[in-house]
């Protein structure tokens, strides 16, 4: 389908595809097998300016938005969600600075991020706080010109590999979620270390680690927005990045469809290529239709974010929810279409299926997305009836 991309948007899509095909596809199996961080690919993305896509031109970026980012993420996800996660988590970690950072903070960090010289990670989740942001136990205590951080963040994408971390910590225990604040912490700060690298079902090329803060002293200037704004920073960040998770879903679903189609045309059973059987045709037709619908929703949500709309929570949650549920279904069915071959590591679809699962979990489980959407519906309905 034609989504009326501009010439520049087509350029971005083509370039991301070229990197996916030339740099990612040849190594994805090995990266997955060895759980190896894709530094070579990050270097290629940096050289291609793709890290600067959504960063304003005045800070060394290209001044594009969530939509262009989604196009790039989709193409990378077609090849490998592990690689795409590494790239997308960088954007996730950057949003707090981009949305709430002071000009000084932006000048200090964004140019290196745009050039791909420094990778970013976002630290929200903890052992007792995931879906429930109120359960955060990492603390930041004001101490003269400094804050002192204590606590452990869990399952942090790009942990250990990133140079810059945007982290949510509690500055006022008495105020619950309103007592949280956002900080930027640089790798190498004394008292800041990393836990073990997690071993995962999928997206094994991406790095997932604990961030450990033990009396970690950071300058006061490292606070993002004001004290107490941490929860807002986190929610707005996720609002912006969830469309990107949707784009990952669209990408991996499309990648799986492409593989299943190719296979079904070649595989012969009962004297015919299996694609000639209606059972297979209908599966493929459903897979393609659902993926196209997901793409349309993700693109619409991303364009809505870029329009400067005030409240994008519902739109981005819907895009994430729908596209990643589709991704799980489509990759599972791609394995089914390919039968025994699909289950073997010789073909890439088993990895796509393993990779797709995380999309329903991270940046808010799809159950949480439904909560978010439902809350928006209730709010809207209540406002409408009040207005009557």
């Amino acid at each position: 389908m034609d989504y009326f991309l501009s010439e520049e948007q087509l350029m971005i899509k083509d370039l991301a595809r070229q990197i996916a095909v030339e740099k990612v596809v040849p190594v994805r199996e090995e990266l997955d097998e060895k759980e190896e961080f894709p530094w070579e690919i990050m270097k290629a993305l940096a050289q291609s300016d793709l890290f600067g896509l959504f960063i304003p031109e005045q800070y060394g970026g290209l001044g594009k938005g969530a939509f262009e980012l989604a196009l790039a993420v989709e193409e990378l996800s077609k090849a490998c969600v592990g690689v795409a996660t590494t790239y997308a988590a960088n954007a996730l970690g950057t949003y707090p600075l981009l949305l709430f950072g002071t000009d000084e903070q932006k000048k200090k960090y964004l140019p290196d991020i745009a050039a791909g010289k420094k990778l970013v990670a976002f630290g929200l989740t903890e052992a007792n706080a995931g879906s429930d942001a109120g359960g955060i136990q990492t603390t930041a205590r004001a101490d003269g010109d400094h804050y002192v951080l204590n606590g452990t963040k869990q399952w942090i994408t790009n942990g250990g590999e990133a140079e810059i971390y945007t982290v949510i910590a509690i500055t006022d225990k008495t105020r619950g979620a309103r007592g949280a604040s956002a900080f930027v912490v640089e790798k190498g700060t004394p008292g800041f270390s990393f836990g073990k690298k997690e071993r995962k079902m999928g997206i094994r090329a991406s790095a997932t680690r604990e961030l450990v803060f033990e009396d970690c002293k950071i300058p006061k200037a490292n606070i993002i927005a004001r004290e107490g704004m941490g929860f807002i920073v986190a929610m707005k960040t996720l609002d912006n990045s969830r469309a990107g998770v949707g784009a990952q879903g669209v990408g991996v679903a499309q990648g799986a469809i492409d593989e299943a189609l190719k296979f079904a045309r070649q595989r012969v059973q009962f004297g015919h290529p299996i694609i000639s059987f209606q059972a297979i045709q209908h599966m493929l037709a459903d897979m393609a239709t659902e993926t196209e619908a997901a793409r349309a929703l993700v693109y619409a949500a991303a364009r809505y974010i870029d329009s400067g709309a005030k409240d994008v929570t519902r739109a981005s949650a819907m895009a994430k929810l729908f596209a990643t549920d589709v991704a799980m279904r489509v990759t599972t069915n791609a394995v089914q279409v390919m039968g025994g071959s699909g289950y073997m590591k010789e073909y890439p679809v088993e990895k796509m299926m393993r990779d797709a699962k995380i999309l329903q979990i991270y940046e808010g489980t799809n159950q949480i997305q439904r909560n978010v959407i439902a809350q928006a519906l209730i709010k809207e309905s209540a406002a409408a009836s009040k207005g009557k």
Partner: protein
Amino acid sequence: MRIVVCIKQVPDTSEVKINPETGALVREGVPSIINPFDMHAIEAALSIKEQLGSSAACSVCVLTMGPPQAESALREAVSFGVDEAVLVSGREFAGGDTLATSRALSAAISKIGADIIICGKQAIDGDTAQVGPEVAEFLDIPHISYVKKISGISGAVIRAERMMDDGHDVVEAELPCLITVVRELNTPRLPSLKGKMAAKKIEIKKLGLADLGISEEEAGFKGSPTQVKKIFTPSARTGRRMAEGSIEEQVDAIIKELMERKCL
């Protein structure tokens, strides 16, 4: 510091097929690409520029000779980060062999000016590896062939390792100098977005026969000592046998052959 990279747009010869019945080349659907070795030349120029840093005021110019559609190869080079592009074009240049091509390219380089000239070691359609050294001779400058490593550029000297048949030589040459590069030298980068945007806009400088100060007799077919007399496919070996029958029988035929040749 000014670096000129000579590139050639070639048909992707690995995609060319031969019609088994007529022996004719089948060109249909074969894409035009930048000669793969020239991609390494472009990468070499860009990494020299990056290493020298902005203080060296280094610029990279890409040069090609060819029909007007060769412009797309130049634009692709710009998308990697090349600063300028020059196209030598005109129907007088058609049919040039390596000598005529080298003469035209060297005249263009004299006009552009260069401290370092970088060429791929050879083009995949011609596979002659002659244009680089011939350009150096026309310009009366030194050259280093088959460079697999550039160890350094300091003052007016370049130091490089050139591949030999059974090892390598470490060679120093005075600038201006021409080098031809092999694929072991580097890994070509992908285009960048900023490069792609620049490639759309860049104005390509065009040079014709008159600009180069070359006479019609010296250019293209007229200026070429060598001429293709005929083209043909190699003939079959006589006395060929085919191993028939089951796989078992075919393998036995191979073993019999190996024994007859005393290879078992």
